[in-house]
């Protein structure tokens, strides 16, 4: 089975599985392999939680996974590294929640990084009612108790690490959304107002009887303590249990009885509060259970999304003997859930009742109009009412009766099972209950106001309770002794529920203000770069001479700045004559750095220059990470040069090339002059001739860089060579000149053909082929060089040069064979080896 799918099946559609890792954990028992999942809520992805699933021993239909623990990824989490894994702790709580064994440091780093980020904006400690991770309460039973407890978390949270600042990298990310949510929460009072809603909630087990009494006292929350009737509540919630007899014969309930109860209660409520009209907005029944929600007529538009979920609690063969009706609704913009339950009876069933409460909270689910799922815990206000059936432990009937008569309720409540389970077994742990300063609600002699019926070993007990979670205020809590038709007394409570009412216009306004602040913060924090120039003209650029232009970059923003040259080779904008140094870098605020533009025209660049006049212009993009891009334009004014030019053009230019004001080819086209040999080539050859042919090392020694630079310049300007110019430097420049020619003297295809003829026929045939096929100018220049080189072979006794050696040296500069082959400009049909080419040239030198 695919673990991702298995885990995803255990999550809701509204949740994202971000990471899944198999780890070993020792949570509750022996080490076991578990699924460690990082989960987020889709509507607020920065709210992340850790889920730990354990494969069940016996795989069940539900995917075979048991959810062990859910932990919100908030600042309260402490992750402690061990040699083989990690410990998870909650706050400074000294017991480890659980530990995992994993080598995956990356996973843990992700968690730690997220916790760090969360610490930037999390203001509120995490607890059952906090604004964040509301969705997580769906998995309420898997949330460890120390994580749930509001008291614990607020106490220990005095040292809060909050910087609440967005860093530039947070914009547009989850962190920004978290920040916005936080800001909206802080400013909530600006766009919401609190409507105090008076809500009366009553619960009553009617012992299977139909309505036969006036219930005004119950609805008005009146008894011997509360003498005055409660004034016109906004809402009245009525929870009945056993409103009809249930037996193995009748397990579906009784519709007639239900209608009787509804009409009775409806009429009596409207009679209880004269001058107010109440309307029923929600009702549901489940066998003996009946829930009704009444609201003042004027309020009915503010109660929306009323949804119901019934949970049947099968027990001892009966189906639906016990159960719960969960109803939820939106009260203005707050959400309310009301649970009316009837749990298992009898003193010895406390554990079963605990399980039933867990079942109800797990199975009570609502589908909202938006198709979103909600469970009972995902509400702002939760009221848990009904016949919870918890009894008193360890006391004799007599001592109970005595204490009741003495009104020592608090003493008795020490033995109350619900209080004990709440405290010891986390049952409804974060629910509040009002002070019980009234008689137990069960079990009375029917028809009496305060006589307990202790037959069948039924001790008096506070079976009927109303608890709540959320920031509601309890005003009254008591029972109605004067209602006598049931063995239970009705229990009433009245609450002030502060519901949030959002003004949509104000909310939009605050939202746009918050967004504006974030935008402003973003623009403020955005890296700002100042560049000294964005148009650079570089003059006096010469062949093979490095020129550097320096720009200054200044970080004029408040934050660190990273810049880089953005290369876009596919845009064809890159010019190889430009090298930017450095190509990337970092500047702290106010720092100034130099950006060097190195311009260098070598062989390849020089050739392109003659083909494309635009070649000397270049725009490059200097990007600032997280900020704007700069376009920097460079124009080179380059001096004309014989390097990279063609022989055909050069022979037409009698004056120094550097002095030309227009492009070489343009000038050559107009020129009527025609030399046989370019003056530059002739000057080099003449120079070498003048030094004789006997010196050793010519064409082999590298020569002097500075001298070579001046020779090139002198060739282009027509200036005399410097006095210390030597044959080594000069011979190098001669080779370079040939190598750079826009077109080789002998084109590769001619060379190939000649080589083949030479191989299959004879050298004279090859020679003839060349003479017949090569243009005159190239031929003349070629032979000019051959003739010149022959002088060296004639003096080989002195200089040690051989035809083979010279051929090897000159073949490539004369033919550009390899270069064109490598560049894909020449694709021979028959492969000609370098030795064959060299051979051909050496034959010329011999002949």
């Amino acid at each position, binding site marked *: *089975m695919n673990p991702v799918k298995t885990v995803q099946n255990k999550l809701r559609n509204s949740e994202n599985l971000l990471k899944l890792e*198999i780890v070993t954990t020792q949570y509750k028992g022996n080490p076991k*392999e578990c699924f460690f999942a990082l989960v987020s809520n889709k509507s607020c992805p920065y709210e992340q939680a850790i889920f730990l699933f354990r494969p*069940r021993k016996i795989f069940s239909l539900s995917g075979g*996974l048991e959810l062990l623990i859910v932990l919100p990824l908030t600042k309260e989490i402490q992750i402690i590294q061990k040699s083989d894994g990690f410990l998870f702790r909650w706050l400074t709580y000294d017991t480890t929640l659980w530990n995992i064994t994993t080598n*995956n440091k990356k996973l843990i780093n992700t968690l730690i990084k997220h916790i760090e980020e969360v610490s930037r904006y999390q203001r509120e400690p995490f607890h059952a009612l906090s604004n964040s991770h509301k969705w997580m309460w769906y998995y309420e039973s898997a949330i460890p108790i120390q994580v749930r407890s509001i008291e614990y978390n607020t106490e220990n949270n005095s040292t809060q690490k909050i910087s609440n600042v967005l860093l530039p990298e947070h*914009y547009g990310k989850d962190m920004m959304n978290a920040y916005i949510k936080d800001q909206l929460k802080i400013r909530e009072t600006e766009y919401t107002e609190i409507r105090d809603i008076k809500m009366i909630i009553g619960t009553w087990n009617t012992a299977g009887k139909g309505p036969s009494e006036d219930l005004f006292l119950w609805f008005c929350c009146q008894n011997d303590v509360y003498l005055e009737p409660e004034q016109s509540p906004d809402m009245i919630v009525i929870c009945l249990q056993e409103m009809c007899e249930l037996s193995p014969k009748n397990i579906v309930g009784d519709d007639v009885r239900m209608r009787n109860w509804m009409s009775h209660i409806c009429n009596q409520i409207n009679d209880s509060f004269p001058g107010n009209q109440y309307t029923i907005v929600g009702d549901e029944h489940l066998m003996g259970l009946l829930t009704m929600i009444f609201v003042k007529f004027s309020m009915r538009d503010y109660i929306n999304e009323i949804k119901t979920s019934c949970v049947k609690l099968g027990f001892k063969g009966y189906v639906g003997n016990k159960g719960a009706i969960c109803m939820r609704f939106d009260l203005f913009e707050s959400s309310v859930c009301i649970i009316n339950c009837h749990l298992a009876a009898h003193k010895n069933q406390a554990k079963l009742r605990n399980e039933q409460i867990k079942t109800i909270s797990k199975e009570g689910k609502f589908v909202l109009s938006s198709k979103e799922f909600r469970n009972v815990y995902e509400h702002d206000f939760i009221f848990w009412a009904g016949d919870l059936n918890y009894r008193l432990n360890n006391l004799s009937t007599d001592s109970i009766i005595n204490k009741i008569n003495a009104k020592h309720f608090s003493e008795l409540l020490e033995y109350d099972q619900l209080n004990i389970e709440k405290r010891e077994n986390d049952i409804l742990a974060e629910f509040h209950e009002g002070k019980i300063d009234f008689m137990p609600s069960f079990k009375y002699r029917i028809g009496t106001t305060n006589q307990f019926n202790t037959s069948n070993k039924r001790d008096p007990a506070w079976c009927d309770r109303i608890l709540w979670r959320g920031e509601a205020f309890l005003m009254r809590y008591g029972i109605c002794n004067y209602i006598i038709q049931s063995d239970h007394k009705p229990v009433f409570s009245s609450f002030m529920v502060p519901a949030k009412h959002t003004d949509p216009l104000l909310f939009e306004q605050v939202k746009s203000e918050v967004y504006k602040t974030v935008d402003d913060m973003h623009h403020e924090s955005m890296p700002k770069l100042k560049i000294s120039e964005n148009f650079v003209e570089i003059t006096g650029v010469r062949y093979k001479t490095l020129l550097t232009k320096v720009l200054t970059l200044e970080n004029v923003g408040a934050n660190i700045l990273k810049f880089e040259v953005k290369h876009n080779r596919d*845009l064809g904008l890159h010019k190889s004559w430009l090298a930017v140094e450095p190509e990337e870098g970092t500047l702290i605020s106010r720092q100034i750095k130099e950006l060097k533009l190195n311009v260098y025209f070598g062989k390849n660049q020089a050739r392109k220059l003659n083909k494309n006049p635009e070649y000397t212009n270049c725009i490059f993009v200097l990007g600032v990470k997280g900020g704007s891009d*700069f376009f920097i334009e460079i124009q080179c004014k380059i001096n004309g040069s014989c390097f990279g030019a063609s022989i055909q053009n050069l022979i037409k230019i009698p004056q120094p090339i550097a002095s030309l004001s227009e492009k070489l080819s343009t000038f050559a086209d107009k020129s009527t002059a025609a030399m046989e040999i370019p003056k530059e080539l002739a000057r080099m050859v003449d120079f070498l001739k003048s030094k004789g042919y006997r010196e050793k090392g010519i064409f082999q020694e590298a020569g002097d860089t500075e001298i070579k630079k001046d020779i090139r310049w002198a060739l282009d300007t027509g200036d005399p060579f410097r006095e210390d110019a030597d044959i080594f430097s000069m011979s190098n420049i001669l080779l370079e000149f040939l190598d750079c020619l826009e077109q080789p003297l002998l084109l590769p295809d001619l060379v190939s053909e000649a080589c083949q003829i030479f191989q299959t026929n004879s050298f004279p045939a090859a020679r003839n082929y060349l003479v017949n096929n090569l243009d005159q100018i190239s031929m003349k220049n070629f032979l000019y060089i051959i003739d010149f080189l022959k002088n060296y072979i004639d003096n080989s006794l002195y200089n040690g040069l051989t035809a083979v050696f010279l051929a090897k040296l000159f073949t490539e500069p004369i033919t550009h064979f390899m270069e064109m082959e490598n560049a894909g400009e020449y694709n021979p049909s028959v492969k000609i080896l370098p030795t064959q080419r060299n051979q051909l040239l050496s034959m010329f030198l011999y002949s």
Partner: protein
Amino acid sequence: MDDNSAQAKVVLLGEAGVGKSSIVLRFVADTYHSDIEPTIGASFLSKIVNLSEGTIKFGIWDTAGQERYHSLARMYYAEAVAAILVYDITNRKSYEAMKNWHKELVEQGPKNLIVAIAGNKEDLVEKEQVEMEEAKSFAESIGAIYKKTSAKTRYGIEQLFKEIAIKIKDNRSIVTREKRGSIRVTSAVSQQPGVAKEKKCCS
């Protein structure tokens, strides 16, 4: 995590002087200056837009309009979600240039690019050279959003970006539905000797 979920790259293209930067500045900072300098580069600004179904954060790239920078624009529209093609309603040449931009986007731009056409300088409507009907029917023919705008008077600016935002959201929800969940399960434990390997459940 999907970092792009909240951010959408929008690029403004159009001839020099049609008001691209002014549109951005009006939208982002609600300011207007009649004499801003030509953009040399691609300036980046951002703005969060509020929609009923959530927010969208625009990362707006305002490109230089001068012809010599034309070829660089591809760097910006290549990864954009939406492109705003701006022309000046008082300048027919800029309208033709806008059409050429569209042609280039079709040929070289990303697939599913959302295109919006903004006929800017609506405040100078008396000097109009391109009639709205013409531009509108062109926009319709290419499936683009069309808005007349004036960075000077705010006219149409908000709506322009809002319509783009809505279209982005619509497209996104389709995309997210298409590519769901691709998580790898790693097991560091199984690399350890002595621990049973790949003990998957239900197999």
